């Protein structure tokens, strides 16, 4: 699963490159060539030219709203100051205490906030 270049990936890349150029040329033709010329060629069932301007504008406005929306979603999912999620969570509540072994590094565990506070803020005599 390495990102190294492979022959299949080169073929996919070139196909996408040709496809995107083709789509772009088609879009330019649809937007700029007058309708009468397209009708005379027999191509009558194409979308209104209104959409050639409307779709890019929709896209850019959606990107701009997306910035604000992401910011707002982040602020909404932040836990408020009065929730217990700021102190503990399900994993910390259900953790098991491992037995203390002599001369071994103690096992990693979540220390309760009362103990942490005592260690930080009350001076040790």
């Amino acid at each position: 699963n390495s990102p190294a270049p492979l022959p299949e990936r080169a073929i996919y890349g070139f196909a996408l490159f040709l496809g995107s150029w083709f789509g772009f040329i088609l879009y330019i033709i649809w937007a700029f060539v007058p309708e009468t010329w397209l009708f005379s060629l027999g191509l009558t069932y194409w979308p209104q030219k209104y959409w050639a301007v409307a779709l890019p504008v929709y896209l850019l406005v959606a990107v701009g709203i997306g910035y604000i929306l992401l910011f707002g979603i982040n602020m909404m999912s932040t836990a408020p100051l009065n929730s217990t999620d700021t102190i503990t969570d399900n994993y910390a509540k259900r953790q098991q205490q491992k037995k203390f072994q002599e001369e071994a590094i103690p096992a990693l565990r979540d220390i309760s906030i009362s103990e942490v506070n005592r260690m930080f803020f009350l001076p040790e005599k």
Partner: protein
Amino acid sequence: EERRYRSASGAPIALRRRQHSASCRELAVRCPRLQLRSLSAVTSAVWLAAYGLFVLSENSMVLSSAIFITLIGLIIYLHFVKIDQESLLVIGSLGIQVTSSYASGKESTTFIEMSQVKDVVINEAIHMQKVIYYLCILLQDPGDPQGVSEVVPLFQSSKPRLDCLIEVYKSCQEILEQRKTAPQSS
């Protein structure tokens, strides 16, 4: 005695500690008063906007309604929003009482019984794109002796910084430790 500190946003606040007895302490944080310059700035902005509307619409009701709105808005702000002082009264065997007094004189109190209080701790959390320290009371979960059922944040509008919070924390812990060493009556 009273000492000066700063709030999380930089405004000057004052902490006053009073010891009523060996197991009863009162800690009060006083917020800065409403500044004349901010009041006049808001009033002039509202009245300028109303005058602009009046020039555009030629309706004199806009001016009188702007005066009315300013007065009502000031009264509502002083009575419901602007907190003058927040105080914490810790009585060792009884409980903790939290009082907020507003600028209009209104006081709202909350009392928490000592058996419900698990601990008073300094917690840090994200609040409006900042990480702040705040003091909070952890309430005991009746079913689980190790669990916390609720978190009650204190000093919400004055938001003192860590040095002031450490003083309040030490005072509270001195009283809370007494209930561990002397649990004679229930």
